């Protein structure tokens, strides 16, 4: 059953307007996936964050942090009030998430191309420790320009890290710069199991995230829309790091 995430989307837009910081369209692009992860897939207890048997999620495209923050709040990892301070001097919530500040954030990301290698290390480490936890990581299609993504892809396949799932938020934001093409074929050619999904269809997302190959890492290429839910933002690069005026906010909230 799909959940309407409109309240979370509104929250993202309001916070960005107040803080004059944040990447709204990137957050909206991944929100359905992050929601399904925390609602149905990840075995994480918000009251026992150091539990060694927990599943891990790394948001490698850290600029989409607002989607993660609102889901962590919704799921009881964080208090709602702290969102009001987003981006402020003493806030624990910045434009990119920090593992040493935000409960539930596993890795400090922002510089693209770091999350997948870290996730490979977690997955290999869990294998060394003979633990059964899963590691999920989300990268963007622009991020897939980075060489470290493909270095890590080689490593994950070589070490048969079937406990690793890499979700690509394929919102085509990189198309204007460097085409990454058919990512399913690319991951398959690197030795991964690879599937594609509509990144805004929660039921389909749940199905593919529930897949656990026996000896290969899993890549899920999620077709998404940057700015999903707000027509003036959808696939409009001008909004990548833009904050609504009060007037624009009214229009957006009415939509």
């Amino acid at each position: 059953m799909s959940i309407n995430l409109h309240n979370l989307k509104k929250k993202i837009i309001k916070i960005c307007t107040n803080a004059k910081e944040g990447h709204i369209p990137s957050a909206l692009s991944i929100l359905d996936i992050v929601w399904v992860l925390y609602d149905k897939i990840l075995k994480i207890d918000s009251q026992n964050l150091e539990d060694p048997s927990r599943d891990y999620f790394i948001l490698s495209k850290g600029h989409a942090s607002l989607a993660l923050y609102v889901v962590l709040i919704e799921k009881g990892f964080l208090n709602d009030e702290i969102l009001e301070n987003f981006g402020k001097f003493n806030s624990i919530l910045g434009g990119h998430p920090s593992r040493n500040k935000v409960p539930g954030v596993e890795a400090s990301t922002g510089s693209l191309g770091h999350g997948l290698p870290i996730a490979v290390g977690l997955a290999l480490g869990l294998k060394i420790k003979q633990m059964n936890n899963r590691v999920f990581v989300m990268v963007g299609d622009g991020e897939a320009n980075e060489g470290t993504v493909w270095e890590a892809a080689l490593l994950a396949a070589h070490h048969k890290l079937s406990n690793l799932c890499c979700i690509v938020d394929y919102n085509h934001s990189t198309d204007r710069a460097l085409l990454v093409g058919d990512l399913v074929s690319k991951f398959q050619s690197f030795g991964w199991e690879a599937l594609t999904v509509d990144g805004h269809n929660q039921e389909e997302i749940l199905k593919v995230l529930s897949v656990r190959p026996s000896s290969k890492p899993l890549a899920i290429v999620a077709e998404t829309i940057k700015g999903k839910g707000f027509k003036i933002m959808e696939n409009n690069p001008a909004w990548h790091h833009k904050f609504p005026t009060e007037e624009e906010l009214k229009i957006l909230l009415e939509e």
Partner: protein
Amino acid sequence: MRKQFVVTLESLLSEDKRITLLLGDIGVFGFHQAFEKYPERVYNIGILEQATIGLASGLAMLDLIPVVHTIAPFLVERSFEQLKIDFAYQKLGGNFISVGASYDYAALGCTHHCPGDVGILKTIPGMEIITPGTDKEFDSLFRQCYANGKPTYFRLSEKNNTESSEVHFGKANVIKKGTKATVIAIGTMLDLVLEATKDFDVTLLYYTTLAPFDSQTLKENSESGRILLCEPYYSGALSSNIVKALFPQKIIFDTLGVPCEFMENYGKAEEHDKYIGLTVENIKLRIKQLVYA
């Protein structure tokens, strides 16, 4: 030092089940016994240094202790951002063991030189930098630090000082006391500096830990206010530490080390030492200039 690295690691791999060794497709034969004994914790990870450092930080998140080993420019310069963010910013512990200090691999050319390692690593908050002068010093310093939860760089060299000192992490050694000047020798510079200072009435300090810098020992042994810093990498990497440690004392300060230029000749490291003036004669000359300045 490379052989000692193998001996030290083989010993610690058996003692500490948290250690995970990642080789960048070098030193593989040396570790063949470790590969057989600990296949789940010893990897020839391949030639992908940036992802290797990232991967190592993932291991560290699980309280494993990664030890990453490859040639200095690839470990430090190619993977700099991963060292900075994945380890230092995330406050994770790991050990990074380089070989090929400065121009040890002289005949291989500039792509394999790395005299900039100490200078650039010093810009990373919390990064520990260690330059052992002998095999025994490496063994001692590694055992003291490898599990301290910090990112730690060990700079191994093909050069070895003749004798080992008893070294302690974070602490400089006072090799001798004098009155006219204080000469600071870093790691493998000690043999040259010892020889050069034997007829001078100077204090000789020996540093194997460069970060964190031991300001106290310098403060207590710089009465003359005349300081000569002798470094086996790009000259002057520790200058700011020295000036800050001695403030507000008035000092006359000189540095001797590798000049900031590409060393495009090949040959042997010793030939480069002579070419750039890392010699006993030149150190003597610089001490004289300092004492009579």
